[in-house]
């Protein structure tokens, strides 16, 4: 049977006018971006210069959706468990022999479904750069996949925060703090000096070109793979090579190392691995959230 929490939350969510407003606002932002970046060539013939504006459009759309999703997810999920606590309905659910994991999964899927709706609604806008041949459809779909992983990760963080808090407001605050912390902590390897093994390879063009992808992957700090920003950079580099200019400079230290390793691994592959790691971390957070629901209701006992 379909998770009851999911189906009934979706019903309630879709009845709320807020949801329609969010979808409308989302599309307005995406369309605005495409007009600003590609508007100059609407109704004109494409040339090489236009092609560049198509690339910009795609990159900015991806970037904007990435940030918006991370921004919206806590708002979507804050009420998931904390709202049930506020309404005192959580106990009523637990009395029905509904397991905490089932509650958490239902709530997570529901919030994710709303974000999925936004991402799918944005797909036609994302396809605008196709018209000038700036990107391919498979690249756009890879971008969408990346957004889904980000949405899932952000939802999981939000659900975890919600399962830990008594009120919706506290839950939002906790999830924004958690998201910032995750972004910051997972970027910490960038501030450390790279090891000699890494610098030896990265600054030696012969060794670098001989580096196998799996070897390159083992050199990337695992923590960095959890960073959503890294996934985004890897995707953009893999698809558009927009950081290739940066890599010409030798004085960029750690960041440059990481870009070179990423390039050896293949940008899209790096992004895919990173997205996988984020998804797994999300699932772990859902388990933690279920444990928190169980633990908190036990604490009340």
């Amino acid at each position, binding site marked *: *049977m379909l998770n*009851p*929490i999911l*189906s*009934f939350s979706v*019903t*309630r969510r879709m*009845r*709320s006018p807020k949801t329609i407003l969010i979808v409308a606002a989302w599309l307005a932002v995406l369309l605005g971006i495409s007009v600003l970046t590609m508007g100059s060539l609407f109704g004109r013939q494409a040339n090489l210069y236009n092609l560049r504006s198509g690339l910009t459009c795609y990159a900015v759309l991806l970037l904007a959706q990435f940030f918006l999703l991370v921004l919206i997810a806590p708002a979507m999920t804050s009420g998931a468990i904390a709202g049930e606590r506020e*309404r*005192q*309905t959580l*106990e*009523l*659910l*637990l*009395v*029905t*022999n*509904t397991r905490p994991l089932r509650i958490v999964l239902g709530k997570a899927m529901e919030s994710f479904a709303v974000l999925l709706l936004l991402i799918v609604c944005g797909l036609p806008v994302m396809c605008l750069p196709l018209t000038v041949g700036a990107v391919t459809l498979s690249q756009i779909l890879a971008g969408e996949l990346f957004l889904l992983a980000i949405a899932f990760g952000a939802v999981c963080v939000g659900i975890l925060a919600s399962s830990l808090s008594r009120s919706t407001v506290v839950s939002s605050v906790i999830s924004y703090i958690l998201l910032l912390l995750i972004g910051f902590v997972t970027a910490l390897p960038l501030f450390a000096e790279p090891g000699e093994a890494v610098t030896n390879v990265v600054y030696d063009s012969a060794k670098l070109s001989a580096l196998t992808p799996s070897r390159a992957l083992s050199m990337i700090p695992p923590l960095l793979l959890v960073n959503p920003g890294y996934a985004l950079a890897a995707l953009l580099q893999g698809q558009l090579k927009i950081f290739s200019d940066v890599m010409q400079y030798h004085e960029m230290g750690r960041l440059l190392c990481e870009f070179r390793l990423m390039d050896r691994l293949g940008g899209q592959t790096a992004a895919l691995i990173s997205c996988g790691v984020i998804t797994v971390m999300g699932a772990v957070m859902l388990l933690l959230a279920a444990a928190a629901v169980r633990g908190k*209701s036990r604490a*009340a*006992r």
Partner: protein
Amino acid sequence: MLILDALTRDYGHFRALDGLSLEIADGQLHGFVGPNGAGKTTTMRILATLLKPTSGHATIDGVDVVKSGFEARKLIGYMPDFFGVYDALKCWEYLDFYGRCYRLSARERRRMTEQLLDLVQLADKRDAYVDSLSRGMKQRLCLARSLIHDPKLLILDEPASGMDPRARSEMKGILRTLREIGKTVLISSHILPELSEMCDSLTILDHGHLVFSGSVEALAEKMNGNAPLEIRLQEGCGESAVESAVSCLKEIPFITEILQEAPCLLRARTEGGEEESAQALRELISRGIPVCDFHRSPMNLEKVFMEVTEDA
């Protein structure tokens, strides 16, 4: 059969429930009465598996609510003293949702939803949004929710609080119906008269202790036995008559306490029954005291409640 065995619950150093033992037969409408903080909600939450007792056991048809919570939850329907309703949801969807949580099949859910909406007289509100209902209607809908999986035991915590008289009487009617179809109902209130009218048996709690448990008749009997005598003397009979009446009553051994309620009204607490009261009356009249009214003042349940909880 619901059996509570030395149920105790502490909140830190505060003992909310102190060794409560009780047996409630199937098909009873049993009332839990006590002032605020008596331990009613604590007991009900333990039975609903939402709270673990510090010590003691509770079993429903032999199923331990602490050890086999999963099985016990199938047997109980729990309605707390708050509504717990969702917005943007219709009445039937609300019931359907809880039916799904209990993993009822679509057919069972449809059948139960229609039946229960009928039972709680909300059939015409089937498609109305839950948040558009009045308090009384919400309360009834919540009652329907607690019945969706057809439990044997229904636990209702203060179902009549905040209801107007009409809503209360509707609720009473529904509870009577439930008893008729053989459900065991546990209902709490801090107002005794409200419960005594419909309950078969009562438990009076105070500060976590059991004060009384038994049928409503037994309670009335227990209380009426020592209802005070009310003796009204002739109007304007003078203080001397009152004084002699008091001294006369004081001589009678089974009268324990005499109070002067008004210039010509005395109230005497007694131990003993009809014979002793007749003797007291004879004594008063033989001394020429102008008695014009002599009776046991009937105890109303409010008084009983006050008295019983005072003793504890």
